[in-house]
C-alpha cells in the first residue's frame, strides 16, 4: 500500500499515523515476551530491572537462575516429566489423528460431518470442563495421579490439531498419484510409504508440533490430575507464580521462548518446502 503521488495531505497524515498505530500494536504483541529474557539474567531476586542492569554493569547480570534450573532436582525432574508426557502423547495423538484424517477424507466415509464434529470437539470445550470431567472419570477407573492418565488426556487435546492439519494437506492431494503408483506395480503398503506419506508429511509434522506444544503448555488438566510424582514444569511454574516468585521461572520462561522460536522456524521451513513441492507439480 505505497502512497500514490496524488495523495492529499490528509491521506498522507493518515498513512503515517496508521503505520505508527500498527507499530505500537506490534510492540504490544512482542515486547512482553522480549522483556523477560534479560530479566532472567538478573543478579538480584527481583522481577524488574536493577540500576546495575540498566547501566550494563556486568555485576548486575548473572546465570544463577539458569544454574538453579539445571541443578535443583525439583525443576529437572519436572522438566523431564513434561517431556515424558508431551512426547508420548504426541506420538499417540499423531498416529490416531493421521489415521482418522485419512479415513475422513475417503470418498465413501459415512456420517462425515457428525464424526468430524465429535473428533474436533475437545478443541472447543473449555479446558476446565474437560478437566472437571476427566478428573472424576480417571479417579473412578484408577488412572488419576498416573502417567497413563495424564498422557491419555493430552492425547484427547492433541488429536483435533492433527486431524485438522492432515485434513488440510489431504485437501490438495492428487488422488491420481495413488493410481499411478499402483499401475507401476507398487502394492498398497509401498504406495502408502513411498507416495502418500511423503506428501502428507508436512501436515503430519505440523499437526504433531501443535499436539506437542499443546501438551507441553497444558496446565489446567495436569494441575488436577498430576500427583507429586508426575508434576510437570507447567504446574511448578503455575504454583511458583502464585506463591513465592523467583526469577528461576523467568529463566525457564526464556528457554521456552527459545523453544517456540525453534518451533516457528521449523514450521516455516516446512511451509516453504511444501510450497516448493506444490509449485513443481502441474496444476
Amino acid at each position, binding site marked *: 500500500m505505497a502512497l500514490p503521488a496524488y495523495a492529499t495531505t490528509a*491521506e498522507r497524515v*493518515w498513512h503515517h499515523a*496508521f503505520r505508527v498505530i*500498527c507499530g505500537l*500494536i*506490534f510492540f*504490544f*504483541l512482542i515486547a*512482553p*515476551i522480549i*522483556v*523477560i529474557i534479560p*530479566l532472567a539474567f538478573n543478579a538480584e531476586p527481583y*522481577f*524488574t*530491572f536493577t540500576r546495575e542492569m540498566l547501566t550494563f554493569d556486568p555485576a548486575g547480570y548473572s546465570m544463577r537462575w539458569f544454574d538453579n534450573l539445571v541443578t535443583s532436582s525439583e525443576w529437572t525432574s519436572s522438566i523431564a516429566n513434561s517431556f515424558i508426557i508431551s512426547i508420548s502423547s504426541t506420538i499417540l495423538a499423531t498416529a490416531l489423528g493421521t*489415521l*482418522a484424517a485419512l*479415513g*475422513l477424507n*475417503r*470418498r*465413501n*466415509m*459415512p456420517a462425515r460431518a457428525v464424526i468430524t464434529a465429535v*473428533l*474436533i*470437539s475437545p478443541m*472447543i*470445550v*473449555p479446558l*476446565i*470442563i*474437560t*478437566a*472437571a*470431567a*476427566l*478428573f*472424576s*472419570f480417571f479417579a473412578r477407573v484408577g488412572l488419576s495421579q498416573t502417567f497413563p492418565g495424564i498422557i*491419555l*488426556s493430552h*492425547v*484427547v487435546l492433541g*488429536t483435533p490439531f492433527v*486431524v485438522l492439519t492432515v485434513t488440510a494437506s489431504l485437501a490438495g492431494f492428487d488422488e491420481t498419484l495413488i493410481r499411478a503408483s499402483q499401475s507401476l506395480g507398487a502394492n498398497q503398503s509401498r504406495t502408502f510409504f513411498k507416495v502418500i506419506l511423503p506428501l502428507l508429511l508436512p501436515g503430519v509434522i505440523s499437526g504433531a508440533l501443535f499436539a506437542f*506444544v499443546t501438551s507441553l*503448555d497444558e496446565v*489446567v488438566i495436569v494441575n*488436577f490430575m498430576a500427583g507429586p510424582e508426575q508434576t510437570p514444569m507447567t504446574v511448578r511454574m*503455575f504454583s511458583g*507464580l502464585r506463591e513465592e516468585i523467583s526469577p528461576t521461572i*523467568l529463566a525457564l*520462561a526464556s528457554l*521456552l*521462548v527459545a523453544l*517456540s*522460536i525453534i518451533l*516457528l522456524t521449523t514450521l516455516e521451513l516446512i511451509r516453504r518446502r511444501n510450497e516448493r513441492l506444490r509449485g513443481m507439480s502441474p496444476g
Partner: protein
Amino acid sequence: MASSTERRGTAAPILAADGTPLKQALRRSQSIERRRALALVAPLLLFILIVFVVPIIAMIWRSVYNPEIREFLPQTASALQDWDGTEVPPEPVFQAMAADMIVGVENRTIGRAAARINREIPGARSTMMRTARQVDEWSAPYREKFIEADEDWTNLEFWRILKRETRLLTPTYYLLALDYEYNAEGEIAPRPEVYQVYKGLFFRTAWMSLLITGLCVLLAYPVSYLLATQPTRTANLLLILVLLPFWTSLLVRTSAWIVLLQQQGVLNDLLVAAGLVDDNGRLRMIYNRTGTIIAMTHILLPFMILPLYSVMKTIPPSYLRAAKSLGAHPFRAWWRVYFPLTLPGLAAGCILVFILAIGYYITPALVGGETGIFISNLIAQNMQGSSAQLKLAAALATILLVAVLLIYWAFNKLVGVDKLKFG
C-alpha cells in the same frame, strides 16, 4: 457409473466381470470402501468417545444424580411417597425409618444418609445419629418413641425435605449454580444476598469476554490490514511478530505480564522514573480486573489476527481504488466495500476469541486477584471440595458447556466452521 444409470430400465441388467449385476457389485464394493474408511476413523472415534464424551456425559449425570436417600433409606423413601406433608407422618413411615436405621447402623451407611440430610437442614445429623443408636432396643409402635427421644422428629420441614430428596434426579445444584435454593416452604427462592456469587460471576465472565473480544477486534483489524497489503516478504517478516506470541507458552506470556504490571514491576518503575507517577502512588494494574483484561487481550490477539489476515489477503486492493475513483470518500469506500468483505474473518476471529475467553482459567487465576476471576476459577475451586461441591462444580461446568456449544452452533449456522483458518 453415469452410463449404467442412464441405461437403467433396459431389459437385461448389465453384469460385472464375475457375473453379478453391476448395481449389486457396485453396492458391494462401496460398502467395502465405507467399512475401510470407518476402520481408519474407528480407533480415534472410540478413543474420543471413551476418554472424552463418556466422562462429560458422566459429569452432566453427576450434576443431577441424587441417589443417597433412596439408597441409604430405601423403606422410608417408599413409605413417604403417600405422605401429603400436612402433618407429622403416620406410624408406617416411622416403622420404615426404624428398619432403615437398623440396617444403616449395621452397614455403617447411616452416617452418609445423615450427612446428606444435614446438608439441607443443619443439625439433622445429630438427631438422626442419636436416634439410630437407640432404635434397635425399641419395638412398635415407633412413632411415640421417636418423638419422645427427640422433639425434632415432629419437624414438618425435616420430613418435607426428606421426601423431596428421595427424587433420583435433583435440580438442587443447578439452583445453587444460579444462586437459588429451596426455602422453608419448599419453594424455589433466591439465596440470601451474601451467598449470591455465581450468577454475577457468569455475567462478569460474559461481559469481560465480550470486552476482551472487542479490544482484540480494535487491535487486530489495523494490523491484519497492514499485513494483507504488504508485499509477501515484508508480510511474512511481520507475521513472525504475531506468530511468536501465538506459539509461546501461555504461562510464559502470563508471567511476562506479571513482570510488567506489578507494583514493583517494569512499567511502574518506568512511570516513576519518568516522573509521571509518585513512588508512593504506584498504579495497581494487576491482581484485579485490569490485569485480566490486559493479559488476556494480549494472549488472545493472535487468534483474531490470523483469521482476519487470511480473509483480507484474498480481497483485491483494486476494489478500494475502484470505489475511490468512483467518488467515494476513503472512509465510505472502506465501510461500504472493504469492511463487508472482511466479515467472515471478523466473525471467525470473534467467535474463537470469545469461546476461548469465557473458558479461561490460568490467566485470571494468576493475574485476576479478587475482581478479575472468571467462572472457571470457581469451578476449579469447587472441584477440590466435598462431594456436594463436586456436584456443584459439575453443574457450573454443564452450564458453561451449554453456553459454549450454543455459541458454537450459532456460529456454525451463520458462518460455517470450515471458514476457520490459521494463516
